[in-house]
């Protein structure tokens, strides 16, 4: 398990927790929008993919019906906004029959204690 609480520089980072899958609702897009704006303002931002939010990272996504934009290009854009810390709940991957090899971006996995520790260590966070 990776220690989530050590990095002093991150204690004031804004943690955006993404819990919804792409396409079916606008939660994921609107959550990423908040992350991008915060980063554009120079704030350190981290993302935690929990629950159905892990589906956001699934490899091989495309635009939706009626040309609905996907969120995968937004996720690929994160590095341009210097958002580099992506945390994923290992248990939520397991529950959905996925592994990190199914994901489109390099991530750091957390066990349940790690998820709780990350939440506890970040004074500023928003769930989408």
């Amino acid at each position, binding site marked *: 398990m990776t220690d989530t609480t050590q990095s002093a520089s991150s204690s004031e980072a804004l943690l955006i927790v993404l819990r919804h899958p792409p396409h079916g609702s606008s939660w994921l897009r609107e959550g990423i929008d908040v992350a991008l*704006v915060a980063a*554009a303002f120079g704030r350190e931002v981290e993302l935690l993919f929990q629950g159905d939010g892990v589906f956001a990272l699934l490899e091989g996504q495309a635009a939706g019906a009626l040309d609905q*934009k996907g969120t995968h*290009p*937004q996720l*690929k*854009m994160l590095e*341009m*906004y*210097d958002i580099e810390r992506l945390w994923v709940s290992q248990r939520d991957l397991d529950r959905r029959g996925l592994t990190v090899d199914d994901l489109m971006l390099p991530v750091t996995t957390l066990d349940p204690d790690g998820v709780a520790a990350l939440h506890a260590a970040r004074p500023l966070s928003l769930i989408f």
Partner: protein
Amino acid sequence: MTMPSSQTLTVDGRFVARDSEGYLVSLDDWSPEVAEAMAQDEGRELTPAHWEVLNVLRDFYRRYEAAPAMRPLVKAVRQSLGEEKGQSIYLMRLFPESPAKVAARLAGLPKPTNCL
């Protein structure tokens, strides 16, 4: 045909509709000639240095389906055109007022939502 709502440009005998702030009504209308005409209409001249940046923006949009804020624009320019040009002061000189906004408009990217 889309009704030109406010200002039209005529490029190579074709009408190009723009909204009241000068953004293209339909992004499909964009071409390098349209960009030149838009710039001329705004009293700007597009040099090769301007075009390098417009091309970075169009490439950014193709990859990420979004127009960048200033910081990621600077980063994208630095990645494609080098350290010297990847500076906000350089972009400010090319596109005074607001490089991310002005250059995105000329590059035919969607109108931003005033979100920043």
